[in-house]
């Protein structure tokens, strides 16, 4: 089995008047930089096996530690790269590894060099470098969005004098040495008394979290897992206004002001019936598109917080995809995958804006959508997104043979990394899109030239005897897991939030 590339990012710069294109590709714990013009790998980087115990402690969905202490120490593995992004000026790359580290690389002079690594309190789910090329915003599994300087400041633990960030560098430092939080006088209910007793007994109470030792600010937070964080700016009355748009597992899309006023929530784009997993801003317009656990995309006028329309991912599209997916899975390993049970459950796993020149030669773009595990992309010309409700939007299916994992644009070429696991299968496909005469139809051709240039990535040896399908699935496919298991609620259990002293005691009122 070979390891697919789970994240890719293009770097296109014109340093010293010379145009150059690079592709950064993450393959498990490896990060590879390819010079696209020379068609060769110029640097490799590996995440080291974490020596510290910073590997994500198993946390269940509720944000609590598991009920029973897990004694089994997970086998030490190098951390996988789970997010990859490039600064707008193309000078830095930021990678998130699944040991919760945000790692910054310089990519100048065709070299890839790790210059900092910062461990976040929770696993980051989304990262972006702001247009100032100096700030990283990073949303996490527990719903918080932090900003970090791209380049850590010289003296690491200067306490920040925050502007109006909600909390500054002293995050979590506000937990004083142990002192019971209440006295017997203030504790009046049986429940509170129990909680206090439990607290007193807890000798290891001081096992508190380390405050973050680097400059950071808490900008905003949801009480839900964040699935998308995007920075947007708009010109209003001649001035640029910055916004942070955040999406969560509880169907919300929130629009906050950008720093330094990120504590102000301007509004919400509400209407999703299932989790939101991807957000895509349409450049040059006030439109954004969101997708998640439904077979519809939502098109928003986000500054007005209103839904423009929905785009139905027709059953036809989705079903075709499913049968293809099954066919390819069967072809791959001869067995049916476990995804069969969730047949109708669409999970949007990617959305990108890509070049799609119009037939008459204009520079148009298309929205390209990936649905988790389906071996295809769906493409919609961006100029169709604003069509009024009731008017059908043309969706073109681009068959890939394998499920797409990530996408990057190099010039007009759309490079797609694929879940191609069998030794020798091509882990990349490059295509070019073009809008055809017929309104809204998109044609595509393979870009053999680009595929040749990326051949070095395909032959890059990543065979790993210990690699198994389950491990790969866990790394590559986690959007579907965001779905809530509805109807499992059991009111008898609602009070139960764990074995701790302050839960599970009946509310014995004394009146």
């Amino acid at each position, binding site marked *: 089995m070979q390891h697919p590339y789970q994240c890719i990012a293009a770097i296109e710069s014109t340093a010293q008047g010379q145009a150059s294109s690079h592709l950064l590709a993450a393959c498990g714990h490896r990060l590879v930089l390819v010079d696209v013009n020379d068609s060769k790998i110029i640097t490799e980087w590996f995440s080291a096996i974490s020596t510290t115990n910073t590997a994500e402690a198993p946390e269940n*969905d*509720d944000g*609590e*530690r598991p009920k029973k202490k897990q004694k089994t120490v997970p086998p030490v593995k190098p951390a996988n790269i789970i997010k990859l992004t490039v600064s707008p000026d193309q000078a830095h790359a930021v990678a998130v590894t699944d040991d919760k580290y945000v790692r910054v690389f310089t990519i100048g002079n065709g070299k890839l060099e790790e210059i900092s690594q910062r461990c976040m309190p929770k696993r980051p789910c989304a990262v972006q470098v702001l247009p100032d090329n100096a700030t990283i915003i990073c949303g996490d599994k*527990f719903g918080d969005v932090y900003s970090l300087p791209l380049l850590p400041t010289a003296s690491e633990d200067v306490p920040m004098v925050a502007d109006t960030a*909600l*909390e500054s560098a002293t995050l979590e430092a*506000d*937990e004083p040495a142990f002192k*019971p*939080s*209440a006295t017997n*006088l*203030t504790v*009046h209910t049986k*429940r*509170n008394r129990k*909680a206090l007793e439990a*607290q007193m007994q*807890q000798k290891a*109470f001081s096992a508190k979290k380390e405050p973050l030792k680097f400059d950071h600010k*808490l900008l*905003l*937070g949801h*009480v839900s897992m964040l699935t998308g964080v995007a920075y947007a700016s708009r010109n*209003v009355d001649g*001035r640029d*206004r910055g916004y942070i748009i955040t999406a969560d597992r509880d*169907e*919300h899309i929130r629009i906050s002001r950008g720093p*330094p*006023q990120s*504590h*102000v*929530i301007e509004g919400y*784009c*509400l*209407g*999703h019936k299932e989790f939101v997993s991807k957000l895509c801003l349409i450049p040059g317009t006030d439109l954004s598109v969101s997708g998640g656990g439904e077979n519809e995309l939502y098109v928003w006028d986000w500054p007005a917080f*209103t839904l423009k329309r929905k785009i139905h991912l027709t059953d036809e599209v989705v079903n075709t995809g499913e049968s293809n997916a099954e066919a390819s899975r069967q072809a791959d390993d001869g067995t049916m995958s476990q995804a069969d049970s969730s047949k109708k459950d669409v999970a949007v796993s990617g959305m990108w804006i890509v070049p799609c020149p119009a037939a008459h030669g204009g520079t148009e773009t298309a929205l390209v959508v990936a649905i988790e595990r389906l071996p295809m992309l769906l493409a919609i010309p961006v100029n169709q997104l604003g069509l009024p*409700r009731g008017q059908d939007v043309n969706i073109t299916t681009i068959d890939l043979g394998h499920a797409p994992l990530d996408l990057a644009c190099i010039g007009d070429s759309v490079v797609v990394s694929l879940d191609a696991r069998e030794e020798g299968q091509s882990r990349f496909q490059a295509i070019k899109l073009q809008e055809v005469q017929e309104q809204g139809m998109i044609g595509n051709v393979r870009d053999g030239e680009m595929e040749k240039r990326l051949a070095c990535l395909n032959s890059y040896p990543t065979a790993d005897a210990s690699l198994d399908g389950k491990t790969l699935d866990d790394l590559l496919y986690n959007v579907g897991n965001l779905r*809530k298991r509805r*109807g*499992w*609620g059991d*009111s*008898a259990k*609602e*009070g139960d*939030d764990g074995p*701790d002293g*302050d*839960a*599970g*005691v*009946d*509310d014995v*009122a*004394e*009146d």
Partner: protein
Amino acid sequence: MAGPAKKRQKREDNRQEGQMPQKKFYRQRAHANPFSDHDLTYPSCPAAMDWSQHFPAFTVAKAVSSTDALDNDHEHENIQQISQQVAVADIGCGFGGLLFALAPKMPKTLILGLEIRTSVTEFVQEKAKALRNQNGDSGLYQNVSCIRANTMKFLPNFFTKGQLEKIFLCFPDPHFKARKHKARIVSTTLASEYAYVMKPGGNVYTITDVEDLHLWMAEHFEAHPSFERVSDEELERDECVQTMRTETEEGKKVERNNGTKYVVVFRRLEDPPWP
């Protein structure tokens, strides 16, 4: 498993619709985990909420056009409208002592309790019905109701920007342990959500007998640029503060135990101009 079913049965045996409910049939474990999914029902957006179910006396003849900007789907055109919006929210209202004390004091204002525990919510709903029945002549208590909600996640599903004039956070669960602080109903990030649903000039009222939690709430609202602390003199002139001290279930228990009650109130400020 037999527990809740049996309880529900007993409840039904013991009273008829519209009769005063008895608390003992509605007890429920004290804590619900605010991070878990539960089996909550909530509107996808405020326009999708049918408030007429909760405030039938305020229902208006349908004449609302579907151009409501917040009606994102045009799916909610058939929802019964009411003549005014909820203006006061009691978050984590428990058995509703405060709600039923406030309702007759401000009969023209819609007051809503939000509670995460199912049976406790049902109790408050039943009690509201019973009180409406008993006060048919005066029309009192038509303005109070309760919904089951996890307010830490879903406040913006129920309320629009700037809708609420008052929010009460009375005797919130203390979550003593540091590891559980994230479960507290007050944090700086949640304060942004409270600010969002509040009208500038409106107040957030907090009360607790746990000093540690009191300091926590004061500190977190104070650190938030959308709020300013209301002076002690002003508190003493505010009738709501007195009601909150004496009419909440928890307030009464603390009274009996001669405990201390810590009150802090914060005013929602106008948003600053864009930089």
